[in-house]
């Protein structure tokens, strides 16, 4: 009967894991250029994405690294909301609805994966907006910050001066705004309004009371038009005609649809990164990482000989697994995040160094295999205690529960997340992977 010892089994499991992780880690397309004598292979190997159905479940995963704004390019905008006029108890609600409105406006851009989040600290309430790929922030800031407040006002004819009397009909009563073209006149673009049921009733009442009088339509404190009411309008439809260009009309209808901002906001921070700069940073980091890693690999072999080779193997497995996890979770990779990853490579070797140094001592007292087992056991205590202390700091930096008294900003968190996942995975590769690889290799050496 064929008997496979546990370390061998575990090593096979590690091998299996590594193959899967490598598959996920590889870039989407790998160009292959091979020239061997007459054979000339030139093609792209394309990694297929997972896309299949099991019963009702559809599994779709494309395994692409998600790059942060500083690497992929884009804008990071921070707005401060003016909450001074609001009851402190309502600030939370007001901010949430502010975020919702901004989110709707941001979605108008058609940017992939925009981030809109609130952040409150010490009485300062902020909205953070991240727009990957958007470089022209002027348009973005305008669209986000526009109040787009729609009001209707009666213009009483009795008084001498043309004063307005605001009605209770506002943009909040709108159910939909759309662009249409004026059929009677020269086909100018106009904005067609559809009121909600309640709004329609209000509108009917206002028109019935104002037949023959103008009704002013005010958008953002500006009278857009003041048509004379000809008849009672029921059904809740109205048209705003003004001197709009088509683009203006579209923009306005978008803003009206998105709704008015419940709080006034003010831009306090803006960061824009051009995609080219990001690509440059990525390339530099990859180069730095590659050279740093080679030096670490070489150092381990020079210091620990064949033990170092095993540690290097563990380190490469560490790298591959980490990268595949970034893709699976997915972790948004930023520049500090890359630094965190590279730092965690340094820490990943540490478990191995601890064990090997211990092994050198223990070997003087026992045979190779026992010495290895003892070293792993003894080193575990310090590896555990030390890494938990590191994880505490990484946890506080990553702030997973969004505590407002801690950092909520992207770069600090990006660093902490990669550092923490690096420490976690290094515990696995440092102990489990290296240990089993060594068990297998030491045995074979004895035979």
């Amino acid at each position, binding site marked *: 009967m064929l008997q496979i010892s546990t370390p061998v089994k575990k090593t096979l499991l590690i091998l299996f894991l590594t193959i899967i992780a490598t598959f996920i880690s590889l870039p989407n397309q790998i160009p292959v250029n091979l020239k061997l004598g007459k054979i000339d292979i030139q093609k792209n190997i394309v990694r297929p994405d997972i896309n299949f159905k099991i019963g009702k479940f559809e599994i779709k995963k494309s395994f692409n690294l998600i790059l942060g704004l500083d690497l992929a390019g884009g804008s990071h905008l921070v707005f401060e909301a003016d909450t001074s006029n609001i009851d402190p108890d309502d600030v939370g609600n007001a901010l949430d609805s502010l975020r919702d409105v901004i989110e709707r406006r941001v979605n108008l851009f058609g940017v992939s994966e925009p981030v809109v989040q609130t952040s409150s600290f010490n009485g300062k309430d902020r909205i953070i907006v991240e727009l990957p790929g958007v470089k022209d922030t002027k348009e973005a800031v305008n669209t986000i910050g526009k109040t787009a407040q729609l009001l209707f006002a009666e213009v009483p004819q009795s008084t001498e001066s043309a004063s307005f009397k605001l009605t209770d009909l506002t943009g909040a009563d709108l159910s939909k705004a759309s662009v249409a073209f004026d059929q009677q006149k020269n086909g100018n673009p106009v904005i067609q309004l559809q009121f909600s049921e309640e709004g329609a009733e209000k509108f009917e009442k206002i028109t019935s009371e104002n037949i023959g009088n103008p009704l002013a339509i005010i958008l953002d404190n500006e009278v857009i038009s003041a048509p004379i009411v000809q008849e009672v309008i029921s059904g809740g439809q109205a048209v705003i005609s003004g001197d709009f260009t088509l683009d203006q009309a579209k923009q306005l209808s978008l803003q009206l649809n998105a709704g008015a901002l419940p709080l006034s906001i003010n831009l306090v921070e803006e*960061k824009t990164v051009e995609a080219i700069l990001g690509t*440059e940073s990525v390339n530099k980091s990859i180069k730095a990482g590659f050279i740093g890693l080679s030096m670490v690999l070489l*150092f381990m072999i020079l210091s620990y000989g064949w033990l170092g080779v095993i540690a290097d193997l563990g380190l490469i497995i560490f790298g591959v697994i980490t990268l595949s996890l970034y893709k699976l979770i997915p972790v948004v990779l930023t520049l500090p995040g890359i630094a965190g990853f*590279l730092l965690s490579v340094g820490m990943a070797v*540490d478990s191995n160094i601890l064990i090997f*140094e211990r092994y050198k001592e223990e070997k003087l007292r026992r045979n190779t295999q026992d010495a290895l087992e003892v070293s792993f056991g003894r080193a575990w205590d310090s590896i555990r*205690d030390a890494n938990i202390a590191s994880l505490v*700091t990484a946890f*506080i930096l990553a702030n997973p529960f969004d505590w407002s008294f801690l950092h909520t900003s992207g770069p600090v968190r990006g660093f902490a997340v990669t550092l923490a996942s690096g420490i976690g995975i290094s515990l696995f590769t440092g102990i489990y992977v290296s240990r089993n690889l060594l068990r297998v290799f030491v045995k074979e050496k004895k035979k």
Partner: protein
Amino acid sequence: MIKWMKYRFVYLGISLFFLIVGAYGVIKWGLKLGVDFTGGAVVEYKFENSFSTEEINKKLSEKGFSVNSIQKAGIDNYLFKFPPLEREDKDKILLVLEEILSSDVEELRFENVGPSIGPELIKKTVVAMLLSTIVILLWVALQFKSFKFGASAILAMLHDSLILIGSFSILGHFFGAEVDFLFVTALLTTLSFSVHDTIVVYDRIREYQKKEGGDLKVLADRAISETMVRSLNNSFTILFMLIALILLGGSTVKWFSVALLIGTVAGTYSSPFVAVSLLVSFDELGRKLKGKKILFDFFKSRK
């Protein structure tokens, strides 16, 4: 075996020297705060034509913009720093530059931070540091069943942070290193690295205490001797990574990597030489006090 602890006052003296140098730097020059703290604008432009800084300064100030500094940040890349800008200023400045240089100017990066962000960043950093310190203190005290271990580890950690802050006041004065968001991250990472290293030495002491017992000073000497190679090797691997990042990683992460490097070196030094030195000193002090107390109690009972 080397009697490391015999010279512990030398190590503490060396640390004190660096702390004083750092404190001198901080008092004399302060820290060079980046836009994250002070508010202001940083714009990275790319253009090929050469220019004179004076001319740009003059032309921009004619239009009402003051330039705080212009730095080279790559082959054709330049970092301009301004006080906080209004939205419209961004395009105006670009136009002025294009006029002066009579070429296309590409805006690669634009950061404009209002003055309200800085104080918040400082507060949050202090909270994060305090929180990490308390949790780590409790964790170490619990794991090693002694408050002395925890307190020494925390003091060593504080030592590393102070050294890092001091170094940056000096680097800031002479080389323009700025304290920004990333520096804060490096500072907090130094905390964790420092404790990481200290715990490894502590763990050896704990092991000998359990197995053999005896004088803490002797155990500490043994523990340091046996973890020294590991400490150095581990630091080397991290240093390789960081040096590669400093030299090749680009301008954005350069000072961040330098900060981590200083933190790593300080952390490696402080684990055996500050944390353990303090631990042994506290232990002796504690025993002396206890001895006196016993003597005192003895006399009291005689009365």
